[in-house]
C-alpha cells in the first residue's frame, strides 16, 4: 500500500472529524486489520497532535506574556523593588569575624605563654654570671628588713656583671667565659693577691663560650711560672673535681665529680658536673685532684637540681690554638709543669687562689 497524499488527507480528516461516515468506517477497519497502516496512521496522528499542542502552547504563552505585562504594569513598584542580594561576603562575614578573633586570641595566647623557643631554652640553661645590681638590690631589701639605719655605701667599683677568670700564662693572659665579658665596655679583674687590674679582651669564641683576656699592665704581676698544667685528656666519669670562683665578693670553693661527659643538649665540648655553682661562678677553673685544669664553669640547667656544666679544657686549648697570631703582641706560653701534683687539696687551693680573679664587667 502506498502511503501518499490521499492517505494523510484521510487521516487528517479523521482526526478533525470532518470525514464522511463511509470514510470513517473504512479508516477504522484499516486500523484494525492492517498493522502497517495502523502504525503509519498513529505516527501521523501523534505528529499532528504535537503540532496542534505546539500551537496551543504558543497561544497560552502569548496569553501569559500579556498577563505578565499587565501584572508588571499594575504593581511595578512591589515586584521590582530592589532586593538586596546576599553576597558571599555579606552572608559569611560574621562567621569569618568569629574565626579571625579565635585565631587572634589563640596566637597571642600562645605567644604570651611561650614567648619564643629561644627564651624558653634560656630558662632551662642559666649562664652563671652575676648581675650585681640585682643582687645588691635584694641585699638592700634584706638589710632594710632586718633593721638597719646604717646607710649602705654604694661600691663605686662594683661592675655591672661579675664572673670568674684565671691566669693561663705568666704573660698575663686569662681565660673566662665569653658570656661574662660579652658587650663589655671595660673589664677589670681583682683578687686579694694582686688587687685591681685593668684587662683587655684579646679573643672571644662565642661558639664554645670562651674568652681570652690580657692584663694591660703586666708589670703588676710578677710570676715566674704557673704551678699547674692544662689537661689534654678528658676527665673520666666520676672523677673528683673542684672549683674556685666568685659567686660573692670572697672566693668560694666548691667540689663534686664529673657526672656526664657531655654538656647541655649533648654538647660534646662540655661536661656535666655535680659541683654546686651559683651566678658568679662562670669562667672559674675546674680542677682535678692533681690541681690540673680540666674545664671552665659555664652554666647550669635550671629544671634539674645539681646539674652544672663546664667547658672541657680541650676546647680551651683549641681556642688558644685558633687565635689569630696578630691579635696578640706576645704568644701565649702555656704552663708546662705541675708543681702541686702531690700536694694536698689545701695546699693546691692556696696556690690556685692567687691565680683566680673576680672579673668585673662594665657597660652602659
Amino acid at each position, binding site marked *: 500500500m502506498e502511503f501518499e497524499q490521499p492517505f494523510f*488527507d484521510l487521516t487528517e480528516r479523521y482526526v478533525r472529524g470532518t470525514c464522511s461516515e463511509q470514510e470513517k468506517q473504512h479508516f477504522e477497519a484499516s486500523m484494525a486489520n492492517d498493522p502497517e497502516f495502523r502504525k503509519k496512521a498513529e505516527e501521523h496522528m501523534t505528529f499532528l497532535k*504535537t*503540532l496542534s*499542542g*505546539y*500551537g496551543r502552547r504558543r497561544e*497560552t504563552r502569548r496569553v*501569559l506574556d500579556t498577563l505578565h505585562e499587565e501584572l508588571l504594569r499594575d504593581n511595578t513598584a512591589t515586584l521590582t523593588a530592589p532586593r538586596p*542580594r546576599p553576597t558571599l561576603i555579606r552572608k559569611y562575614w560574621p562567621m569569618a569575624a568569629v574565626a579571625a578573633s579565635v585565631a587572634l586570641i589563640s596566637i597571642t595566647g600562645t605567644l604570651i605563654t611561650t614567648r619564643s623557643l629561644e627564651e624558653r631554652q634560656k630558662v632551662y640553661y642559666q649562664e652563671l654570671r652575676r648581675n650585681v645590681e640585682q643582687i645588691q638590690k635584694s641585699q638592700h631589701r634584706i638589710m632594710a628588713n632586718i633593721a638597719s639605719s646604717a646607710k649602705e655605701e654604694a661600691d663605686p667599683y662594683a661592675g655591672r656583671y661579675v664572673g670568674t677568670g684565671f691566669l693561663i700564662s705568666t704573660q698575663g693572659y686569662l681565660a673566662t667565659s665569653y658570656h661574662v665579658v660579652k658587650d663589655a665596655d671595660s673589664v677589670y679583674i681583682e683578687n686579694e693577691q694582686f688587687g685591681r687590674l685593668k684587662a683587655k679582651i684579646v679573643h672571644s669564641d662565642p661558639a664554645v663560650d670562651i674568652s681570652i683576656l690580657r692584663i694591660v699592665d703586666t708589670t703588676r704581676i710578677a710570676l715566674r711560672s704557673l704551678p699547674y698544667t692544662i689537661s689534654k685528656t678528658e676527665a673520666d666519669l666520676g672523677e673528683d673535681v673542684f672549683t674556685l670562683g666568685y659567686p660573692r665578693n670572697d672566693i668560694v670553693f666548691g667540689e663534686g665529680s664529673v657526672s656526664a661527659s657531655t654538656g647541655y643538649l649533648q654538647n660534646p665540648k662540655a661536661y656535666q658536673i655535680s659541683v654546686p655553682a651559683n651566678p658568679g661562678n662562670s669562667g672559674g677553673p675546674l680542677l682535678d685532684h692533681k690541681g690540673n685544669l680540666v674545664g671552665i664553669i659555664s652554666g647550669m640547667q635550671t629544671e634539674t637540681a645539681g646539674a652544672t656544666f663546664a667547658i672541657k679544657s680541650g676546647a680551651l686549648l683549641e681556642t688558644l690554638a685558633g687565635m689569630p697570631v696578630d691579635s696578640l703582641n706576645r704568644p701565649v706560653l702555656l704552663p708546662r709543669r705541675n708543681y702541686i701534683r702531690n700536694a694536698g687539696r689545701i695546699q693546691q687551693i692556696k696556690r690556685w687562689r692567687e691565680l683566680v680573679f673576680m672579673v668585673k664587667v662594665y657597660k652602659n
Partner: protein
Amino acid sequence: MHYFDELIITEIRKNNTVALRELYKTHYPMVLNMILTNSGTEPEARDVYQDAIIAFYERVQQPDFVLTCKVKTYIYAVCRRLWLKRLYEKKRYVGKIEEGDPFLQIEEELLDIEETEQRLRAMHTSLEGLGEPCRSILEDFYLNNHSMEEIRDKFGYTNTDNAKNQKYKCLQRLKKMFFSGYNPLT
C-alpha cells in the same frame, strides 16, 4: 478543598481568561521571591513561573486531574523543582533534586512537563527551520484553523488543489525534520 482553588479550577476548565489572570497574579510574587533569594533573576523567575502555570493549566484541562493539595503548594513545588533543575544545569546546585515533597505526587507531572517541553521545542525549531511560505501555510492551517480556501487566497494559488498539494509537501518536510530531530542550532 479551598473554595478559591476549586473555583479557579472550574473556571480554567471552562477556558476562562479572567480565572487564568487571577491565578497568574496571585502566585507570581511568591515564585519571584523564591527565585530571587536563590540566586536567580527576574526573567528566569518569569520563565519558570510560566512553565509551571502552563503545566498546571494543561493538567487541569485533562478530565482525570485531581488536585491533592492547595494550588499554591502545587505551583510552588513545581517551580521549586524546575528551578533546582535549572540551577543544577548551571552547576550552581550540587545537591540531590529528588529530595522533599514526596506527598505531593508531582513527580509524574514533572516528567510529563519535561518530555512535552522537549517535544515542543523540537517542533519549534523544525518550524523555524522550515522557511517561507511553508511555515505560514502550515501555521495558518493547523494552528490558526484557516480553511484551504482562505490559504489559497492569501498565498495566491490558482486553485485549492494546488494549495493542498503545497501544504502536503510542506507537512512532509516538517515531519521529516521533526522526526530526524533536526536542530540547526546544535
